[in-house]
């Protein structure tokens, strides 16, 4: 499975001894993985969604954005198993005759891309600020931590909304539409860096007094080099766990913003946008336009959260 290869390659970056992958298969983490049916199910579901999203143009039965293939006469077709259903459209179609399951596949691609990109950006931002805060200390530390305190007392969604509103007010309309996805990634990342910064700062405070850091300082290495080449690898463990748990939260924030109508433009819908579109037809009885994207979102986030919980427990030596 690609996921195992993923772990194998991270091990390979640090030290490439032959058989790193085999050692992983015999290691504690994989052992814990094998013993949890819930985790195995969650990872299978997650992999299926990721593969479907990656190869969306080939996997999806229709292309929901190719206007030539859309037929308005097919609009509002219910799922294939109901009376008026059409076997071509497994989960039915929306108001413009778009195939719901294809829209979900493309939508989860958008949600995954934004969720992952925002998480990575928040991680880079948070880790850098946390390292600086912990290693340099003094006024810089006090300043960064005060900002973190203030930000932590406001919910992430509010901060993301504010940044999005700011971008909307300062950019011209057309420019904002083309940049919407990037603005969204930036807004979610800016709302999520605090967790990483606090964790990294805490572990950096411990690491900076250790001998290897002092040795590096004595031989005159640049502080930035010490931070990123020596301290960083030793504080990265907990960061990866936070990141896994944050992906789910980032996807929820993205879908909430898109649902509120301030996220991605309807031309490149994410799962949240699809739910928003379908919400308009809830009362006329076309429930499938909302319910299936909603279910897809829940399944995606749930499988990521189960994996994150498992990773946290598996990496926590106290629970072994």
């Amino acid at each position, binding site marked *: 499975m690609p996921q195992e290869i993923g772990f194998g390659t991270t091990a390979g970056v640090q030290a490439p001894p032959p058989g790193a992958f085999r050692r992983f298969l015999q290691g504690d983490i994989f052992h814990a993985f094998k013993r949890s049916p819930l985790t195995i199910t969650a990872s299978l579901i997650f992999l299926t969604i990721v593969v479907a999203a990656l190869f969306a143009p080939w996997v999806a039965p229709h292309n929901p954005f190719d206007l030539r293939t859309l037929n308005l006469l097919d609009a509002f077709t219910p799922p294939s198993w109901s009376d008026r259903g059409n076997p071509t459209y497994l989960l039915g179609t929306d108001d413009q005759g778009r195939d719901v399951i294809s829209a979900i596949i493309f939508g989860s691609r958008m949600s995954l891309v934004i969720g992952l990109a925002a998480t990575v950006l928040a991680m880079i931002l948070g880790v850098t600020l946390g390292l600086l805060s912990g290693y340099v200390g003094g006024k810089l530390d006090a300043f960064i931590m005060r900002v973190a305190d*203030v930000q932590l*007392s*406001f*919910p992430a*969604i*509010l901060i993301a*909304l*504010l940044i*999005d*509103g*700011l971008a*909307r*007010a*300062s950019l011209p309309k057309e420019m904002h539409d083309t940049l919407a996805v990037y603005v969204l990634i930036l807004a979610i990342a800016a709302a999520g860096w605090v967790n990483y910064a606090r964790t990294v700062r805490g572990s950096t405070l411990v690491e900076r007094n250790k001998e290897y850091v002092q040795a590096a300082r004595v031989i005159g290495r640049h502080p930035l080099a010490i931070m990123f080449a020596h301290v960083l690898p030793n504080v990265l463990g907990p960061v990866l766990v936070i990141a896994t748990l944050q992906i*789910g939260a980032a996807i*929820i924030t993205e*879908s*909430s913003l898109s*649902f*509120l*109508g*301030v996220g991605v433009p309807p031309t490149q819908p994410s799962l*949240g946008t699809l*739910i928003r579109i379908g*919400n308009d037809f*809830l*009362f006329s*009885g076309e*429930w499938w336009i*909302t*319910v299936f994207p*909603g279910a897809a*979102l*829940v399944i995606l*986030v*749930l499988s990521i*959260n189960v994996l994150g919980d498992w990773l946290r427990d598996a990496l926590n030596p106290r629970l072994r």
Partner: protein
Amino acid sequence: MIAFVLQRLLQGIAVMLVVGFIAFSLFNFVGDPVSLMLPPEATQADREAMRQSLGLDKPFYKQFATFVENAVQGNFGISLRLGRPVSTLLVERLPATLELAMTAALIALAAGIPIGVYTALRRDSWFARFLLTTSLVGVSLPNFLIGIFLILIFAVWLGVLPSFGRGDTVALGAWTTGFLTTTGLKALILPAVTLSFFPLTLIMRLVRAEMLEVLRTDYIKFARARGLSDRAVHFRHALKNTLVPVITIAGLQLGGIIAFAIITEQVFQWPGMGLLFIQAVQFADIPVMAAYLCLIGLIFVVINLVVDMLYYLVDPRLRAERAAGGGH
């Protein structure tokens, strides 16, 4: 005690100044307020006159001082979208949001504490496991989806509850309330349940964890050794001690509930401040955004202050520490 309150008060004022500064920057640097307010055919002389009347020709710190002065008096200018004073708009919308948030908080406490106690006491029963798993699913469910599913079931399929708006309201002076009419109460049910879902799972998990912790302590073992009934041990001794952190978290959650009301208000078209704010974001209506930001900031600061003081009153250890540290 007075020193502690003063210190927290100063901290709160500092946070409010930061929030106010962000709001002020929104006002003055995002887009040009002059061109936003004047019609496009205005002449250069009109612009200069407008700049002077807005005080934009003055130095930066004086502008900020004026902004703070106006903000303290509740003057945030005129909504660009609706053309009415922002403060009036917010005051009109405030009761709807507060009633929704309070009801949601009450539901979360009234259901979260008993469920938490139950799952802690009957740890191995299948029902407790079921509740715990449900709460995990609940954390993975975005707030708006819960609302949509509730609308689908109770408004569309069963047709028993309304799905949007506030129903009929009664005006009590400046405050409009939906508590006094049947339609108002019915309209409140779905949004309040939706909004209470997340804090409910949080309180339930917190009560469960605290309860399990307390049940392991020596004084509980001693209470059992004294031959007290299970009921007395669980509710008189254990529960009382779990409630201190619960009060803190519940208090802090109230701010979160008010902020998350934005999403719930959008789903149910509930005419509160959140709906006003989200429309302001969509239309880049800066004065409304700035005012909402300040108001939410104020609510958060006040809640934090009250919770800190409650904590201080409830936990004697904090007081003892202060007295010892204070010296004279």
